[in-house]
């Protein structure tokens, strides 16, 4: 589905991401693990086109590495940024509507669908997004991204700052979207146990490079990797 080769991003003399290569297969959940500053978020932003980058990102047979963020979301990649990035001044429903900006067809059934998935959003549909709790905002951010009907979802630290119960709820939704709709997901997580549970393959990043990769089982079972990178 997406085949990334030698993706790099430099800020002046500092290299945030250095020649990263990885694949996300169709209908797979891929996890990115690693400490702060490992280049996980930068990689996400490089794929969604919000920052200039070099290398190649093959998506459906085209290289999208030089495309703009607008045309990338149009081609079916949606990005839920770290810190959620909801439009605080717009209502919940307006947030969902703007999420479908690139679509020309009717979006009412999609709004209904995400209200059903996240009933709390429907209860608050006329409230400003800025007044929602952190968990509700994360739900809104994910629902808004899904409004564009993506085939690949980039999800940056969805569990950040959320209560464990809400996090579980969100991950259950992601899992079911993956299984029932065939949505591919690239998931950045600091919470390794959570990521290892849902992802089929995991890449371990450190200082802008992939230091290990493998199936979730293999990584979870590797005593040495667990000790060195995942906090036991």
């Amino acid at each position, binding site marked *: 589905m997406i085949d990334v080769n030698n993706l790099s991003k430099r800020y002046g003399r500092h290299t945030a991401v250095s020649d990263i290569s990885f694949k996300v297969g169709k209908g797979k959940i891929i996890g990115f693990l690693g400490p702060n500053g490992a280049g996980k978020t930068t990689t996400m932003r490089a794929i969604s086109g919000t920052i200039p980058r070099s290398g190649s990102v093959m998506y459906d047979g085209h290289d999208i590495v030089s495309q703009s963020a607008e045309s990338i*979301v149009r081609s079916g990649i949606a990005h839920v940024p770290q810190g959620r990035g909801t439009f605080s001044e717009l209502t919940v429903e307006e947030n969902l509507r703007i999420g479908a*900006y690139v679509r020309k067809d009717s979006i009412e059934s999609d709004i209904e669908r995400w209200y059903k998935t996240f009933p709390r959003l429907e209860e608050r549909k006329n409230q400003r997004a800025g007044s929602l709790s952190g968990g509700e905002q994360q739900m809104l951010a994910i629902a808004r991204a899904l409004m564009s009907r993506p085939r690949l979802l980039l999800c940056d630290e969805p569990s950040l700052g959320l209560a464990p119960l809400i996090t579980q709820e969100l991950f259950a939704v992601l899992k079911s979207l993956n299984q029932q709709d065939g949505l591919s997901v690239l998931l950045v997580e600091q919470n390794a146990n959570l990521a290892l549970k849902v992802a089929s393959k995991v890449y371990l990043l450190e200082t802008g490079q992939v230091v290990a990769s493998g199936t979730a089982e293999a990584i979870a079972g590797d005593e040495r990797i667990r000790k060195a990178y995942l906090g036991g």
Partner: protein
Amino acid sequence: MERLLQYVFDGLSFGAIYALLALGLVVVFRGTGHLNFAQGEMAMFCTFIIWQINEWGVPLVFAVLIGMLFGFLLGAGTEATVIRSVAKKSPGGVFVVSIALFLGLNSLASMIWDRSEGYTMKSLFPNKPEDFVRILGAEWRYKYIGVLIVALILMGLLFLLFSKTKFGLAMRSVASNPESARLVGVPSGLVLAASWGIAASMGALSGALVGGINGQITPSLMFSVFIYASAAATLGGLDSPGGAVIAGLLIGVGEQLAAGFAPGWIGQDLKLSVALISIFVVLLVKPSGLFGSLKVERV
């Protein structure tokens, strides 16, 4: 009572013009976080274009429409070229650029239309001495009523654009969070250029209305109007279109009352300071303006 009503009528019409120009300031501020100091001069320049087209024999109504279109292109073009390239490098630079535009447009207009006594501008509305209705003893001139109606209609259209259309939603999303707007595929460059275009085109209309009321246009046509409009935008809260309209009307009425009821010691000369002092007081008490939003966000 008659006099009070008279000042209120006149004040509402002037206020509506301030509100139009103030709305332009708010539209730009919401989109880019900058005050466009050239807003008034852009309006003045468009007014001269309207006068010129009218002078060439095109009926005034169409001349105004063409002038508004010209304003849209002027505003959008300015954003897409000078403003955008400067804003990327230094936000403070936008301030300098808009001051430069202010001076540049003013000199350019003085160069092209150089008659020092100015030019006679027709009004869009009947403007003979007998063209007024009498309400409770006060005269309400048709040209003032016309200005008020046109301004209110345009504001209504703008509110519909903001709240009911996909483009309006896109504009508000860029104002709220530019980075996320890009992530959902909103072409933010296009949206910002359009905001500047809309602002300048409202300026063109307000210029034509001022010119029509004064009957005379010179390159300094919009100086005091711009000051009142920026006062209205500040007073209403820079990010609130509704606030700009209400504050614009308030300032218009307040100006007429101050000048009319205390002619001896305020009069025409000091009314500008009265407006500014009252705004100063409001902002001391409520820094975000009457209707401006304090950013509230839960994390």
